[in-house]
């Protein structure tokens, strides 16, 4: 199922991107000259220890703040921090926390509608119908448009967040730990949905997560961050079967698993890594 990169062109590129945060006490180098490419239509997973700069990278992709050094390119053209509407439309985000990412005082419908209104998608009367269609697309009944986020479960909220990101018809979807707050059953449903959507709409995903099990099953390629640096980047198979970097190996070696086959795989990696 994984798509080979050769048939796809580069859609997004980071060239030596760094980010330094200045706090009153010290400087935090959150990202240290990271260069990576994202191919059109692929799912690139970003994994790494906590605090390694994954969210920072995502935020810069979305223009929330500018890189301290380096540059970002979209389709080969520089990606400014101040986004025009079409650029905004092109890259969308699904946030980590599904509760806070939805306005508690606005109905689900209103939140979805916003994207349509801002980007002037469809004609005004048609938009209500589109909202319903979007909800159905993420597997929710269209009546949910009338509901407030507080009346939804975590998984349902996350689906609404996905629907909203999809509403403007983006090319690239940045997903920052979209399932970490969900239990495995719900997580499986959301992942399935994401996978299907990607196929249907030929989307490009930048998928940030801690869960290597998830990575294994959804990503085409994996980028591993450690302390602000990109330490390894390879196709998913490669990462799991033949991890090159020591940190990557230790990650894979420590994944808690539930089946014997998985145990075998893990053991293999651990042995290569020299961990007992």
């Amino acid at each position, binding site marked *: 199922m994984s798509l080979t990169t050769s048939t796809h062109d580069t859609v997004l590129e980071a060239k030596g991107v760094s980010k*330094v*945060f*200045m*706090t*009153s*006490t010290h400087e935090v180098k959150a990202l240290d000259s990271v260069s990576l490419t994202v191919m059109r239509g692929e799912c690139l997973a970003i994994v790494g220890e906590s605090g390694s700069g994954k969210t920072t990278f995502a935020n810069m992709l979305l223009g929330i*703040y500018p890189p*301290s050094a380096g540059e970002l390119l979209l389709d080969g053209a520089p990606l400014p921090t101040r986004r025009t509407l079409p650029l905004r439309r092109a890259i969308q985000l699904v946030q980590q926390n599904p509760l806070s990412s939805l306005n508690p005082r606005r109905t689900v419908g209103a939140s979805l509608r916003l994207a349509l209104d801002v980007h002037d998608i469809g004609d005004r009367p048609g938009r209500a119908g589109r909202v319903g269609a979007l909800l159905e697309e993420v597997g929710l009944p269209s009546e949910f448009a009338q509901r407030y986020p507080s009346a939804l479960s975590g998984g349902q909220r996350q689906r609404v967040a996905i629907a909203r990101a999809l509403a403007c018809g983006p090319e690239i979807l940045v997903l920052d730990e979209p399932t970490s707050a969900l239990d495995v059953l719900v997580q499986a449903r959301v992942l399935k949905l994401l996978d299907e959507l990607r196929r249907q709409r030929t989307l490009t995903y930048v998928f940030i997560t801690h869960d290597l099990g998830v990575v294994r099953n959804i990503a085409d390629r994996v980028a591993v961050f450690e302390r602000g640096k990109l330490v390894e980047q390879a196709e998913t198979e490669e990462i799991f079967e033949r991890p090159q970097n020591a940190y990557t190996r230790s990650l894979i070696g420590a994944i808690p698993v539930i089946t014997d086959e998985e145990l075998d795989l893990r053991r293999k990696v651990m042995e290569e890594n020299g961990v007992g």
Partner: protein
Amino acid sequence: MSPLVRLLLKRLSISVIVLIGVSMLIFTIARVIPGDPARIALGPNATTEQVEQLRDKLHLNEPIYVQYGYFVRDFARGDLGVSLYTNRPVMTDIAQFLPATLELVIVAGIFMIGLGIPLGIASARYRGKTADNIIRVISLLGVSAPSFVWAVILMLLFAFFLPLFPIAGQISDTLTVPPRITGFLLVDSLITGHFAAFFSALHHIILPAFALALSGIGQAARLTRSNMVETYDKPYIEMARSYGFPARRIANRYAFRPSLIPSLTIIGLDFAAMLGNAFLVEAVYGWPGLSRYGVQVILRKDLNAIVGTVLVISATFLIVNIIVDLLIAYINPRIRLAERSGS
């Protein structure tokens, strides 16, 4: 430079800007209040030439920005001008009346914090119980009337019908007033060891200070309660409970300090608002304070005195707020240790 010092400097510079804004605003306002200050000052029988002379002397015939220039020049020399109403330097008047008001407001502030916060803590600790309900109703009643209504009600109850407290003034008439050192009667009488005067002053200040403080007490209790209740729902309180710390300790140590942070800002504002409200109470209790002077000078369009009084009150307000901010910063490590700023 420690973050606290940095914060202090930042707040101070902002306050200076605000104070400049206040001075411009009040300067303009004082000059658009109808009524010719010169005419009012000279009395109804003054001739037009006399009025014109005084207007010239006060630069009233010049454009307002020029007048402001004169004001700034004099202010830089520590001169606020002469009050047309008392014929004394405004500084002298303020020095005379500010301490009485501050004394009243500070005692009221002590009531507010000393009673309001413990009541709020108790209320939160026993939330849902009878004690909580009683405290809630009391504090709600406290905030349900302005200080002057409380002043009148308290006076009626505790000075007229039940003569426990004197009804007016700062000190009993029969006592000699201690020499003026700080201007704060309570302090001066203590310094000079004049205990009769001290107790008399204390006796006199209780009722007005309490009237002034009542809504503040209610407000402080309510705020403390609601913030504490919110804090009680925080996981770290549950965690403290899971370690079996006694309820008292949890209330006073674990829950109180975090809940104080949001309360403090409002309590600070309230405290400062008392400065403005004091005049109503001062009027009822014949308290020789600044707020009353302020109202008098406004009615008489005593330009210099208006500007001076307002500046002093604003400055006090700002100082109180700076103190509160520093306190918050001190309690809240987040502000003390790192002010987050994006690059």
